[in-house]
């Protein structure tokens, strides 16, 4: 094979065994996202152009939709509550995040923990709690001056509670990354505090605020739990899908509403992506972190505001918890355990709770392994650039797809008689698949962020040492990223426990889930047992989260010993 002629021909690199394995991995991940996301969405969209017999009828369904005021008026309703809830949530969350990052307010740790509480509960829980506060027999019903909680007021309050931690976390991150020298420069130039706030603080946090706005808007716009419980006659899009599909068995109209719901979500998602790309690193390597200085006036007022917000959050949880033990609200306030006797009620009984635990565990284990490996292949793979780019795009996409839409899409796709994957329909497997697909994006981005912090040359070094990539992946990448991996697993578990929208169309009689049971019991008028089940979900997640928080400290000490100097 002596090469005697030195040609200038293009070099065709030989594909190594490592690379071949990576390509196979990328194809596998790609297939999952194709089957778990793209094809179902396609099935759903094509359904919106068909009649009930499957004949193509063009835009007839859409024409019908827009000529039915009861239906298309929901768009207006959904937008109204979304805008209101977004404005309120962002305002509260900004003050809260500002207090946590830029003031010397005491008890910051406690406040931070309290703000995260809503994440651990299904969105049904605040709605149920609001019924006990402001419902027909609510204890402070009079505070609404005769207005009904069932409608936009209830939805907005419930959504503000439920989306608060999401906004707060984004804003805390945005406000944490700043350079103290900017403030020193402003002070040296004798800039007033107010002017500094508008010229330094706000511009620095701008992208965080924009991102939080889009995240909250999308969450509210697509949420199902809160409006289902407390929406009353006030129709919103996600509840319309449910009514069309479950109530009227009109799948085609359900598909049309899904498309209507999907479009703003995709637009909001796209704008957010574009804005994120504009974000330049504010924090150079030499930036000096900002240490807030004590200021009596600011610290005290922050403490008061945060105290009120935290009090409201805690009381919403406490009310649901209290109500779940009350024998017969509001006539017999004896505390009993009878509401936890789920087996005598509709909704699946205790089995639905164990099913949920099982489903969440599978989602956490399989989902984490799968998503992290996928992120690794996208981030660290060599060659096959097209494949990796496609996967990265597909991995970001689920964030734009509302759970209801995904769930309905799964019916159309997996329940199709010709689908070879049809066998997973009505099993635990489809619930796990839909949940992984639904929560793919955040997990993927967490993994990518962790992987980006790894030295890009690890793979090159192991190739030079002739160590196959999977060995380095297992011995170095996974251990180093362990905190993020556990973080992903906890995120998936918590969300699998609380999600309703993605699974509401997909559970079978023997795979009922706890969050769905909350909904069904509430539907049947068993509000106290619904509160009890919601509290059970919350308690499970809270226990897991506490173990996680305490455990990471212990784990950090053992597996991350190398981090110490």
């Amino acid at each position: 094979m002596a090469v005697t002629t030195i040609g200038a021909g293009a070099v065709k690199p030989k594909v190594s065994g490592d690379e071949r394995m990576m390509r196979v991995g990328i194809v596998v991940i790609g297939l999952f996202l194709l089957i778990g996301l793209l094809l179902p969405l396609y099935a759903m969209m094509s359904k919106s152009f068909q009649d009930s017999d499957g004949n193509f009828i063009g835009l007839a369904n859409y024409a019908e939709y827009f000529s039915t005021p009861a239906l298309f008026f929901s768009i207006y309703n959904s937008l109204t509550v979304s805008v209101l809830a977004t404005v309120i949530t962002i305002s509260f969350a900004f003050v809260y995040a500002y207090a946590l990052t830029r003031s010397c307010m005491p008890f910051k740790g406690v406040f931070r923990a309290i703000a995260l509480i809503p994440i651990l509960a299904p969105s049904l829980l605040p709605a149920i709690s609001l019924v006990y506060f402001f419902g027909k027999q609510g204890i402070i019903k009079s505070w609404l001056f005769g207005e009904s909680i069932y409608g936009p007021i209830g939805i907005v309050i419930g959504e503000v509670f439920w989306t608060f931690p999401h906004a707060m976390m984004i804003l805390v991150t945005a406000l944490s990354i700043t350079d103290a020298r900017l403030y020193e420069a402003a002070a040296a130039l004798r800039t007033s505090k107010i002017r500094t706030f508008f010229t330094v603080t706000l511009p620095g946090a701008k992208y965080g605020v924009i991102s939080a706005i889009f995240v909250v808007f999308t969450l509210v716009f697509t949420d199902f739990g809160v409006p289902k419980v407390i929406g009353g006659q006030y129709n919103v899009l996600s509840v319309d899908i449910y009514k069309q599909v479950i109530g009227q068995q009109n799948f085609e109209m359900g598909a049309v509403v899904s498309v209507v719901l999907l479009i703003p979500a995709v637009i909001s998602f796209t704008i957010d992506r574009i804005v994120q790309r504009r974000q330049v690193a504010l924090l150079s390597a030499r930036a000096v972190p900002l240490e807030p200085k004590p200021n009596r006036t600011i610290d005290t007022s922050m403490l008061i505001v945060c105290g009120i917000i935290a009090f409201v959050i805690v009381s919403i949880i406490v009310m649901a918890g209290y109500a779940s033990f009350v024998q017969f609200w509001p006539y017999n306030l004896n505390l009993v355990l009878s509401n936890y006797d789920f087996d005598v009620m509709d909704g699946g009984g205790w089995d639905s709770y164990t099913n949920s635990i099982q489903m969440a565990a599978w989602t956490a284990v399989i989902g984490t392994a799968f998503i992290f490996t996928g992120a690794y292949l996208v981030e660290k793979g060599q060659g096959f650039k097209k494949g990796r780019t496609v996967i990265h795009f597909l991995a970001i996409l689920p964030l734009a797809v509302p759970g209801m839409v995904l769930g309905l899409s799964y019916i159309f796709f997996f329940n199709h008689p010709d689908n070879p994957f049809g066998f997973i329909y009505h099993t635990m497997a489809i619930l796990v698949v839909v949940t992984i697909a639904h929560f793919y994006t955040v997990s993927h981005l967490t993994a990518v962020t962790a992987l980006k912090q790894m030295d890009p040359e690890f793979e090159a070094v192991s190739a030079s040492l002739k160590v196959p990539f999977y060995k380095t992946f297992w011995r170095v990448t996974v251990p180093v990223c362990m905190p993020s991996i556990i973080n992903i697993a906890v995120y998936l578990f918590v969300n699998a426990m609380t999600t309703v929208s993605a699974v509401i169309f997909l559970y079978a009689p023997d795979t009922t889930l706890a969050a769905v049971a909350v909904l069904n019991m509430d539907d049947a008028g068993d509000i106290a047992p619904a509160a009890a089940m919601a509290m059970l979900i919350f308690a499970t997640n809270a226990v897991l989260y506490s173990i996680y928080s305490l455990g990471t400290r212990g784990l950090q000490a053992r597996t991350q010993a190398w981090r110490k100097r």
Partner: protein
Amino acid sequence: MTTAMQDSPGHESAGTKTYLRIDDLTKNFGAFTALRDVSLEIYEGEFVCFLGPSGCGKTTLLRCIAGLDYQTAGRIAQGGTDISALPPSERDFGIVFQSYALFPNLTVQKNIAYGLENRKVGKADTERKVAELLELVGLEGQGPKYPAQLSGGQQQRVALARALATSPGLLLLDEPLSALDARVRVHLRHEIRQLQERLGVTTIMVTHDQEEALTMADRIVVMNHGVIEQIGTPTEVYGTPKTAFVADFVGTMNFMPGTAAGAGRVRLGTVELNCAAMNGISEGTPVTVAVRPEDFVVRCTDGANGNAFEAEIDDMEFLGSFYRAELKVPGMGESRIVVDLSVNAVRDLELAGGRSLPVAVPSDHILVFPAD
């Protein structure tokens, strides 16, 4: 398999064997050409530095040799085998990166043993080899520590030991000293060079630091804009730079605009000087004349065959072991020249700002380049 190598005009005459041979290597990143027709031979056991400013293509060339990037065209042969298309895992090299890329969760020992464990080397042999390497890089007893517990210089040595553990035929160093502070850097330069000589491993180091290249390399490959400007020993590159770029990049250089005055003479304003080599530039052509600050002579300028001119000291900077002076030359207009003056010359001749003095340049230290 080796016929191709033997066909080439042999460097055997130099008593050395070609180990790595690069032919017409071109690398494009989209529309950008990072390397253009680079050809180069590296001999067995040699220490070669790729030197150039950032973006000159030196790192790209190293990555092509390692297989971490693939050239668009051209060929690389190592030990007589064409490796152009092989993935890194099928090539024979050890590599040290600027970031060291030590596995943070593995101890020093395990880092060094990382490549050995995969070669079915027995446990006892591995341990012996690791101990040997630790001693070689002067880190005895540091084996059980984690990388983060070591200083930058120590981490660098661990990276070196890890790269050498599998006894590769070629050692690649990608700016290995840039992340260290000046003192450690000077010390490690010396150590790496000694280690390389002891092991006799063919080594390529990428650097942008000319001092590093001058002190460490057997030969320096000076690169700019994706092409090789000059290949030569440190003395050649410093003393007889082939291009104005090399003259400027390596060391300090005075550049003066002038005209070729025919037959080994150049004119700088009203001053005319003899120079040894004209590089075939014809009379009347504008040229750039280059002289190193230390090549000007201020003592005994009478015997300089007329290669002397009057100058006035404008400014003097004391740099400890010598003075760096800026001189005005009345015959050369506005341009200043930089001249290094020894401390004793300054003392003996009582030199100070404002003083005029004759300055001479030996004709063989005047470099003439075509003006650009």
